[in-house]
């Protein structure tokens, strides 16, 4: 690329991200945040998953839009049961099988990362702290809900 092309690309990027820069600076001027502010932000955050996919285009992994193997729903239901009543060893075994089932999927990234942190199989250093079991199970429940809705 020529210098002119690189500068043009830089200017294009700056022009495109200027709304985000403005929005972020606005957030830093907000004192005494209210419940309404946070509820609005949460609703916006939920929509960001779709926005990220729209910006980046269709996922090359082919599971955009929440499509998942129907068997995953059954697996998650079983693992949730084990997670609530099983021994630590049983829970770890069930989580490992869940992690394998989620391998290579773009959906449920947060669940996969939480499982990796719980099992101590985080791929890069530094290893994040082990999340509470209740948090992992809550993510699993949320994943199940998403499957049911899709």
């Amino acid at each position, binding site marked *: 690329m020529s210098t002119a092309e690189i500068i043009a690309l830089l200017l294009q*990027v700056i022009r495109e991200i200027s709304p*985000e820069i403005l929005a972020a600076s606005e957030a830093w001027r907000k004192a005494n945040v209210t419940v309404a502010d946070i509820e609005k932000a*949460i609703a916006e955050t939920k929509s960001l998953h779709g926005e990220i996919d729209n910006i980046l285009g269709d996922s090359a992994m082919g599971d955009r839009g929440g499509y998942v193997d129907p068997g995953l729903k059954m697996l998650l239901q079983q693992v949730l049961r084990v997670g609530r009543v099983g021994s630590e060893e049983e829970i770890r075994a069930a989580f490992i099988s869940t992690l394998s089932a989620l391998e290579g999927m773009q959906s449920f990234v947060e669940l996969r990362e939480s499982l990796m942190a719980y099992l101590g199989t985080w791929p890069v250093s530094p290893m994040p702290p082990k999340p509470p079991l209740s948090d992992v199970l809550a993510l699993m429940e949320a994943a199940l809900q998403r499957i049911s809705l899709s």
Partner: protein
Amino acid sequence: MSQLRIRHVLPIVLALSVPACVTGFSRTDRLFATVETAKYGVVAGAKTVATLAKAGLISTNERETYRNYAHSAISTAEALENLILEVVRSGSVSELSRDQRITYYAELLGRQIKMLDDLVVAWSKRTKPVGTHTAIEGELK
């Protein structure tokens, strides 16, 4: 492209440590602003990645890597916002387990944002197009 280094506008440690009497902004205000900044940073990063991809400077695999971690960071931001909501609704920040969870997610979000930022900064330095499946060996040498 140093102006795009979103971690420089994400001072999580500072946001959580400066007393309210100094700035007029409570810890909750700063945590909220930090999370919002992180969210906008992830979207801005995605726009940058999309532009670089169109220019042929980022491979499909690399774009997918960004997508993967971007979704993860957005989920962490949502978890933090839900905790902030709990704090504002209850009017208390002293509940220990909630405080530990806020710290856990804030640290996780900080790591995720740093990772996304490092990727975007490395890719933004490229001046030659990459092949569809080229990894980032160039930056690692």
